[in-house]
């Protein structure tokens, strides 16, 4: 089956687009807008609103009908949404199966001063009514705050004997977030700790795929709730546990295993 955007009739391909051009509002500006939209594969573009923004800029809102479609066959099977365990279940599992508190160290690294994300997950208050990891009796949380150099974060991970590293990156210009995150993985690998800690990153531009690609165990994007992160942590640790690794989780995780494969299974 062909899939197209839906406005009010199947396969009408209706889309809305808005953008600015570095041209003053003029017939030339409008023509440029229309031609660009046609190049995007949109038939019959209608500029429903345009406005001069001064300094040689103009703004357009355009509606039209997309000529492209995708075959439903290429979409594959739906990957089931991750089931998030709740607060009580997470604490119960850790208490019963692990028998000690898990240590979490969190920070924003590099030059990034934005702590909104890490605070939403870690601060007791949590986010959108979901309590933060500090409030879980089964976690000991060390929130190092903002602009922590990766080296310092690593030191703290060792000091606290952390089970989990949680890093947040918001600033993204010139891909600085990827650089910082990669640097941290390299440091952790360099000190032979990579198999001993779960590494999680988060931020508005972080996706699960990106995180796995650069060597993290998980990545969480915008609107992630603390329970989703907690749920991932406990499942990952339980998983190792069920595979027969007894005792302390830390230090006895399976070495050399590619997490990318593992991730997809659970």
């Amino acid at each position, binding site marked *: 089956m062909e899939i197209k955007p839906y406005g009010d009739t199947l396969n009408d391909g209706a889309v809305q687009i*808005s*953008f*600015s051009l570095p041209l003053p509002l003029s017939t030339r500006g409008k023509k440029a807008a229309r031609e660009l939209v046609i190049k995007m594969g949109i038939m019959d573009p209608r500029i429903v609103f345009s*406005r001069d*923004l*001064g*300094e*040689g*800029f103009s*703004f357009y809102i355009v509606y039209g009908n997309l000529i492209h479609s995708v075959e439903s066959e290429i979409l594959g099977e739906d990957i089931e949404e991750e089931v998030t365990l709740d607060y009580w279940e997470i604490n119960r599992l850790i208490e019963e199966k692990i028998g000690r508190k898990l240590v979490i160290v969190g920070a924003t690294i590099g*030059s*990034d*001063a934005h*702590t*909104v994300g890490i*605070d*939403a997950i870690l*601060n*007791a*208050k949590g986010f*959108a*009514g979901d309590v933060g990891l500090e409030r879980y009796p089964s976690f000991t949380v060390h929130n190092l*705050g*903002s*602009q922590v150099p990766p080296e310092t974060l690593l030191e703290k991970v060792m000091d606290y004997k952390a089970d989990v590293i949680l890093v947040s990156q918001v*600033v*993204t*210009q*010139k891909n*600085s977030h990827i650089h910082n995150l990669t640097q941290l993985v390299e440091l952790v690998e360099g000190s032979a700790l990579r198999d001993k800690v779960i590494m999680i990153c988060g931020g*508005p531009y972080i996706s699960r795929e990106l995180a796995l690609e650069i060597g993290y165990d998980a990545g969480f994007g*915008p*609107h992630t709730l603390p329970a989703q992160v907690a749920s991932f942590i406990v499942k990952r640790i339980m998983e190792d546990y069920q595979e027969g690794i007894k005792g302390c989780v830390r230090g006895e995780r399976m070495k050399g295993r590619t997490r990318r494969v593992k991730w997809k299974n659970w």
Partner: protein
Amino acid sequence: MNDTAPDDIEILSLPISLKEEAFSLGKGIAEEVHNKVKTYSTFAIERASLRLLGVKGANEEGVPWVNIFIDKCAREGKLSRGALFTLGEVIISNGKTLQEAVEGVATGAIDLGTIFPQDEKKVKELMTSLVSRSIEDLLGMRRKRQEMIDSLTPGEKPLLYVIVASGNIYEDVKQAKSAAMMGADIIAVIRTTAQSLLDYIPYGITTEGFGGTVATQENFALMRKALDEVSLKLGRYIRLVNYCSGLAMPEIATLGALEGLDIMVNDAIYGILFRDINSTRTLTDQEFSRRILSLAGITIVTGEDNLIKTVDAKEMAHTVTASQLINHHLALLSGLPPRLIGMGHAFEMDPSEEDSFLNELAQAWLVRELFPQSPIKYMPPTRFMTGDIFRGMVLNAAFNLIGVMTKQEILLLGMPTEAMHTPYVQDRFLSLENALYFRKAAKSLMGEFRLREDSLMRKRAIEVLNNGVEVLREIKGVGLFEALAQGSFAEIKRPLKGGRGLEGVFAKARDYFNPFLNILPGTIISRGTNYGD
């Protein structure tokens, strides 16, 4: 701000005794801080003093001359009596100009260790005259700017504030002019990430930054010139904002004064909590900075909005109020008149909660009524902006409506793309259109209403003020420094000896000399000298 504060703003009828207690506690806490920081100076204050005298420039590696000079003074043990005294000795013994003397010491051409002690009276006379001249220059520049402002219309209240943050000052200039033409009254150039942690001012015009544009004297000048051009074209004065915070706070204040900035975000408590700057360092820096800003007639805005971005804004609203009461009095003690003390706060309550709009309205009125002579800077929703730009416009509309109804003077406009990226050029248009609608459509709305006897809004405002007073009592008991160490604000603990920049603080010697301290406005309450009027 240059106009009188809005009249007829009493609507909450707050209990007078409660208000009095709140102000008296704020005063007590601020005085204790003020008395402590007056005994210190910092490397940044000494550098700012040199910059106020007109010292400029940097070496080939971009290290400012003032930094090298002050570091050398410190190494030679010549700082505790004040860098200006040492500088005076160098000038007299070497027959150099001010700039030559600083550069000579910085490059090593002049060795501080071999400077002969000079006649104290002569040194002091020389430096006092240089300081007086620089103050005259600054006041002259202020008068000139005021003449320009007076020749234009000031813009309607609330003034609409938008940010530019491209990282490239030339792109910033284009975007700022575009925003002004679409109705913006105030342009803030966001600083590059982590500039607040630099213990110096970078040099030159810059075209690269992360999440913002480097604050340099040269960038300030470029943007000021562009806004002056667009102001004259529009016949409406466009104000320029930058950040007077971080480790180089007093130097940034100096540059703001020299380059004609109108508003500076200035809040030591923000630096302590969110940048982990040492509390003594930055509160000392802030005192001196505010005296410079007062001399230059620059409006400060405080950063209380940040206190409720990481905690529940409804539960913790009173910490905003408590911090404002302290900050306001600290500013008075540093010579700022109330109309130059902009109090910051924000619309950050969870919009999914019942009556969140009512609670936001109560909070906005509370701030407005507590500080009737001060401009209030209202910050838009950020925490609950999700990337759903359409819903974001709804929240921003609610924010704008409250801003207009409660006569906030400075509205920092929310962008629909908040939480996604720094604003696109069209985001500013959409936000300005939103705010311009409410500024016009709801102009006289609130004058129509009086609160009922059992008003929920009044009840909420009194509850917040009560809780604020409670917090102030606790802070008063231990002092602000200890309260910061205990985590009284935003659940963040900052110990007295922790944080960045402590090494740049020193106790002033008995014979410490800095004529700026005698001439800059300060503690207007007792001295009666006030350049701010």
